[in-house]
């Protein structure tokens, strides 16, 4: 199950002069509470901080185990920021919002 969530396409909103396309990938393994919590937390964050200009790809490793190698996935859930570069990995259920924002470079370290 790879689900693409792309609000930009539906809303047509762009964030003015400093265009930042967010490309995010969330690795999960089945519908575990941790994975569901991570997805919920991620959506909330994106709405709040990314101004609708983001793409979320959800990869369920139970269905596509071969994809674990590509992004060096060990922990589940793992959020990978593909864009903007550099690539960042954020592990856990994303419940600690401050740490997620740091991880995504939305807050200074």
């Amino acid at each position, binding site marked *: 199950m790879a689900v693409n969530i792309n609000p930009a396409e539906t809303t047509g909103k762009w964030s003015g002069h400093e265009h930042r396309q967010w490309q995010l990938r969330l*690795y999960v*393994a089945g519908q*575990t509470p*941790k994975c569901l*919590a*991570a997805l919920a*937390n991620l959506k909330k964050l994106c709405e709040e901080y990314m101004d609708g200009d983001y793409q979320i790809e959800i990869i369920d*490793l*139970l269905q596509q*185990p*071969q994809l*674990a*190698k590509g992004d*060096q*996935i*060990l*922990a*589940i*859930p*793992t959020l990978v920021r593909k864009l903007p570069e550099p*690539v*960042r*990995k*954020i*592990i*856990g*259920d*994303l*419940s*600690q919002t401050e*740490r*997620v924002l*740091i*991880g995504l470079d939305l807050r200074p370290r």
Partner: protein
Amino acid sequence: MSPAKSIRRERERLLLIKAPTGIAGFDDITGGGLPLGRPTLVSGTAGCGKTLFSMQFLVRGAIDFAEPGLFVSFEENEQELTQNVASLGFDLADLIKRRLLMIDFVRAEQSEIEETGDYDLEGLFVRLGYAIDQIKAKRVVLDTIEALFAALPNELALRSELRRLFRWLKDRGVTTIITAERGEGEFTRHGLEEYVSDCVILLDHRVIEQVSTRRLRVVKYRGSFHGTNEYPFLIDEHGFSVLPITSLGLNHQASTERMSTGIAQLDAMLENKGFYRGSSALLSGTPGSGKSSIAAHVIDAACARGERCLYFPFEESQPQIMRNMQSIGIDLGRWVSRGLLRFHPARPHVYGIETHLAMMLKQISRFDPQVVVVDPVTNLTEVSSPLESKAMLARLVDYLKVNQITALFISLTSGTHQTEMSEVAISSLMDTWLLLRNLETNGERNRGLYILKSRGMSHSNQIREFVLTDRGARLLDVYAGPAGVLTGTARIVQEAQDKAAIVSACNEIARKQRALASMKDAMDAQIAALHARFAAESSELNTAISEGLLAERALAEQGNILGNLRGGRASNGSSSGKKGAKHGRQYQSGRDNGQVERART
């Protein structure tokens, strides 16, 4: 196999099925390999060979036992790993192509990871499971999973996940090796032994006096008998090998077969037959006393019989030995080219003694020779303590005896009695001890050889002078006479003197014989002269006697005639004799008359 041993084997088989590692020697000390379908922890300091041990387990499993293997590397990528083990003879790319091996590089960088709440390692599980399914792996290596402790900050979560991982691997039924760094006072830095309790193997790489020795120890092997000693191991161009010392024991066969030493006179000292096959001989001597030359003879004779010989020189290179032996007329090169003789030179200080011996045992088991020469064994003892060296030599000697390999250990002594005493430690392991001594007398040095001991035969107790000629070594009887034991020119001089003495004695006898003969001649001459004189005188006397008798008769006749003339009894001739006897005085006068008569005639 003894009954007790087979029962033990049988019991082990029932208790625990093992996955052979294919690592030489290791399967011996563990009774078959690693526990099948269970995780094993291999721990050691950096650079001690953990990765190699694991990789060999997979490669041999894939090639020899048709068990595909998965190598999960947390430190090196596929390319690096392939390059690292290529020098050890493993062609990983080929195995990967044949789907017998898979390398999965798991990179976990702390700098890239931000922890934001609960997580588990399901990603790793999925990944492993997927890789295992792909090649149907039976063997898995995690090298080294401790890298995760650096990458993931939440140690508590990690520990519970590792516990789950090992359980999961067990459930999958794969035989797993988990490597770990040796920690302070612990087997592993992060206490992984807590989770992996079936089998723990410790690798060690010690450097003592700048000489390194690698050792392996099976710390724990649940449900199995295992050797508990520290076993030296080797990493060379053929990979990882553990010194197989399970043969250590005194139950080897004793052959009655004999083999010539290649020197007829030396054979003669050993009951005319030479060494026992499978025995160990110590050949000790001072520098330049001809030890290597005797060894070359033994090798030459063995190769000529079609036997294989393995030579371990620790001082000279192969070409140097071959050149030197050429000078005494022994061509070792022809045996080398026929594959009967192999040299394995090494400097003693390159490794520790255990590594040396492991290396030697490996070479021996590979070449399977009938004769082994170690030249000199004393150099090996230099790189270790006497106790260690004796223990290791005992292992070597036992190994050789079990395999019925005749061994010649050359020992270099400084010639003093103290050194000979210190060799006693080694010599007790030896069956035959030949001692070469430099005998210094009259400003020259000569070589003497004698047999200190030779078990199981009535050997000669004589010293022989050992001479190297351009046609090989020869043993000569030394001069042992009233002037003492002499060798070299002194022997020759003494022998010449003896010869001269004998010649002059012979001359003296001849002279005396001649004197005696001439004395006899003189005596005979005298006898002859006496005889002649006697003959001359006796004939003269006889003449005189007969003349006397004639004269007497004539006188008597004259008397008769006179009587007849005076008494007229001339007719009575028969009584004339009586009358003559009665009248002695008449005879006297008649004799006077006779004389007158003779003078007259």
